[in-house]
């Protein structure tokens, strides 16, 4: 466990260093935000020392944060020189996410969640225009309400069990207080995951955030929440699982229909798709003892593909497909393929893994909903593809060279997870036991 705390410490240290160095020397090019990178690498390396349950969480979150850092220099912010703050917030958000995902008791989870949520809100607020502010405000208010619910649940759990730890199935079964508390805590974390009746603010925030930051906001919270909820479900048993199955299925339906309506707006479509993927994670979490493993795997895969898509879109306030060079067009296509679950991309393997556990534990109806949501997602994800490929010309500008490392790392992650999904699965698997 100590390695996880060390990783958090290193990330916080990195944030301070970034603030001190980059903020001080404003004449430096914006790539100075990359000062934070070594800290992320060290944190990830430390994460590998962590016990199996958490190593995947730490490594995946560090990867998401690292790619996020790589994209910071093209920040499309309202105030352009906020690069240092954005970088520091990315690092702190990653630290909070690790705190949430690696929490050993409910109090740690709450504090980690709040750190993550507040940095996400601020990152959203950095986006351009009143839209970003508005979305950030909505995200914050709804987050605060769900935090209140979560804390209320924490109070009930303390009353019911007399401890701050994740309650066990026996404790939940013996006392309605604890059950109500666990349900409230679960819904509070489900807000971070952006599951259906709690997705409202997240959806708008995902839409309005600056493209170079949106990927981090979308995937870090999902990753951390998936791990934390997984731990809660594993500990508290089926009571929460059944809720998650139905909430997850509803989320898939909602996200799919919502995304279908977004023919003209790629960013909004991607936001809705984040909701759909949250639904898959929720469904997986509710699917029996193997569910949390699958959910962790799914979340890690989702992180890689969301980062890839936004690495390709970064640097543009409005996504214009024709302005992407060949490299970013191919990267975007790969990300969209993976999001829509085209084999052999990792998105497909993750979906398949969810279907397997859902069929075993969640029943045919939920599985059918997941299948339908999965296969019909091609209708909205692949819609831009003919235009995208037709827009590729070899002689066009490749876009901004500063983006190359970010796109490359994210693409490597997606390709690697697609070819060798077993590695991430093995890392996630131990978290199930």
């Amino acid at each position: 466990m100590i390695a996880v705390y060390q990783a958090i410490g290193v990330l916080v240290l990195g944030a301070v260093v970034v603030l001190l160095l980059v903020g001080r020397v404003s004449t430096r090019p914006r790539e100075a935000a990359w000062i934070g990178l070594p800290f992320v690498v060290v944190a990830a390396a430390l994460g590998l020392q962590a016990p199996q349950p958490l190593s995947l969480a730490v490594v995946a979150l560090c990867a998401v944060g690292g790619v996020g850092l790589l994209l910071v220099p093209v920040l499309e912010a309202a105030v352009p020189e906020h690069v240092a703050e954005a970088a520091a917030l990315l690092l702190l958000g990653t630290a909070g996410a690790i705190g949430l995902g690696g929490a050993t008791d409910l109090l740690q989870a709450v504090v980690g969640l709040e750190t993550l949520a507040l940095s996400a809100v601020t990152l959203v607020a950095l986006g351009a225009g009143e839209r970003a502010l508005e979305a950030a405000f909505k995200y914050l208010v709804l987050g605060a309400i769900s935090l209140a619910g979560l804390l209320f649940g924490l109070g009930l759990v303390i009353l019911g069990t007399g401890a701050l730890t994740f309650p066990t199935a026996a404790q939940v079964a013996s006392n309605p207080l604890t059950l109500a508390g666990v349900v409230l805590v679960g819904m509070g974390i489900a807000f971070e995951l952006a599951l259906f009746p709690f997705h409202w603010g997240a959806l708008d925030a995902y839409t309005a955030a600056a493209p170079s930051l949106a990927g981090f906001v979308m995937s870090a919270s999902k990753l951390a929440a998936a791990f934390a909820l997984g731990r809660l479900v594993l500990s508290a048993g089926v009571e929460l699982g059944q809720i998650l199955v139905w909430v997850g299925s509803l989320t898939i339906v909602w996200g799919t229909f919502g995304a279908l309506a977004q023919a003209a707006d790629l960013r909004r479509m991607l936001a809705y798709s984040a909701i759909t993927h949250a639904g898959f994670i929720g469904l997986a979490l509710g699917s029996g003892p193997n569910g949390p493993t699958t959910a962790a795997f799914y979340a890690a895969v989702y992180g890689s593909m969301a980062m890839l898509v936004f690495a390709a879109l970064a640097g543009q306030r409005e996504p214009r497909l024709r302005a992407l060079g060949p490299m970013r067009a191919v990267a975007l296509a790969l990300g969209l393929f993976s999001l829509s679950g085209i084999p052999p991309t990792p998105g497909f393997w993750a979906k398949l893994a969810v279907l397997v556990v859902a069929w075993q534990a969640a029943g045919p109806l939920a599985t059918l909903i997941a299948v339908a949501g999965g296969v019909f997602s091609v209708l909205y994800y692949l819609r831009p593809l003919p235009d995208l490929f037709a827009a590729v010309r070899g002689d066009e500008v490749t876009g901004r060279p500063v983006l190359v490392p970010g796109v490359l790392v994210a693409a490597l992650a997606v390709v690697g997870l697609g070819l060798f999904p077993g590695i991430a699965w093995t890392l996630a698997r131990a978290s199930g036991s």
Partner: protein
Amino acid sequence: MMGLLAWAWVFTLPGLVLTALGVPRDRRYAGYASLAGPVVLLVVAVVALLGGGSSSVAFENWLPFLPDGAYRALADELSALMLAILGFVAAVVYVYSLGYMADDPGKRRFFVYLDLFVASMALLVLAGNLAVLLIGWTGVGISSFLLISFWRDRPGTLSAGLQALAANAVGDGALLLAASIVPTGCGPLVTLSTQQCAAGPGGAELLALLLFIAAAAKSAQGPLYFWLPNAMAGPTPISALIHAATMVAAGVYVLVRTHALLELAPQVSLAIAIIGTATAIAASLASVFQANFKKGIAYSTIAQLGYMFAGVGVGAPFTGLFHLFTHASFKALLFLAAGIVIHGAGGRESLAELRGLGRFFAFSLWGFLIGSLALIGTPLVTAGSFSKDAIIDAALANQPVIGWILLLGVTMTGLYIGRLFGIVYLAPAADQHAVHHDPSAERPMNWSIVPLMLGSIVLGYLGNWLRTVLSGPLGPMEPLPPVPNLTGGLAFTLGALGFVVAVWYVRRPEYAAAPGETSYRADAWVRAIADAGYAASASLSRIQSGVLTRYVFGSVVAVAAILLIRVSLR
């Protein structure tokens, strides 16, 4: 050679990469780098087929979360035959496309998509388990979508592509479900029918049903046929390769591959036979009412696939496969011959505009004639007669009602193909100034269809040899009927009758005055569903109103509701 063949899906990838990178640089020669792929595929497949045997590749535990998560490729006589068909038609289509797409600015992209398609199709054919099958299965769907929507500026191409995607998605979903519900260790296609696997949830029936749904979506059978006619919005070589010869036949291939499972599920088999027959008749009828040349042929494809399904459904998978084999040749021939006229007429496709223009293209005329004769099953001199008679014979023996319907259906075949042939090739020309000859583009097109002509004539004689070769993967089969025989003769007579009547009817001068037939639209019900779905999604997205108070209300009420449901119903 089988060992090499097990990696056949790699063959077109070098071409894909080179073409995508812009090699060769001269635009006139774009696509030349891709040419070698299908030829190598053809040669290797034929040599492997002659050599026989089988070879498999397996990487265990590649996808540890699946019941069978290995990478399994299986090259045996059956896959070799399919790959030979793929290589043959693909090689022809590649050469043909050099002419057909000569002036298109997206030529390079076209060949990249083609390479992607051939690679996915090869992987589909080589798949040894459901996981790998899914990769190829989805891959061909995606390449099909990209190629249908290739001319994205033309109206309707994107929606046609999305329709194909939607239909494919239904099939993908069925296959996905099959891959996730089989009991552990039951992914390999050849083991699906074993005791252990058939004992899984739902048993053999459920698995067979899922495979049938997947196959029906890919092969445009039953209610899922709506996408194929609209898929003609893509370039004609694509219609020949993907939407006539290979991809749409993948459904038949999968059913043949898993025929042992079908034998355990007689009700599903019967459903396959009935749906195949119904589709054959309905699609033949629809073809007679098409105002678009290519759509007329597309309905013919659906009908012929229906014959193949019927063959598989009545318990004679080999006849279905044999018809797939000959059909690939003569249907590709029909499309490519039609493409020559369409190209020469500046991309016009409606029958009214093409009326009588076919006579200015000798290769096209002869090609279409040979293809038509093969389609109605002229005994001895065309390949179609051998395979179609085999299906009808097997159906008459096992399910006589279905057999008679299929036999009478040949009349419809004669009618629709005679109508197309009569209008385009035999009627007096409507506007001969619409024709532009471009020798440099026509040469590759003309000569590339010659092998298909030969194939449409002689391939039928390979039937008994194939039966011996395939006895390994398919098990013992009933002998093919002798040619010529009574049912075959009867079928041909009916078909020829339809052909002659149709040609006579459309050549009358009165017919020329009334060319404005209304096209029968296959996709009306799909459009209705899609409209309803989009309307629902639009109103649903309005609930996301952007008003914070409503969001708060929704969240708080949701918390209360979930608490109430969970805690008080306990």
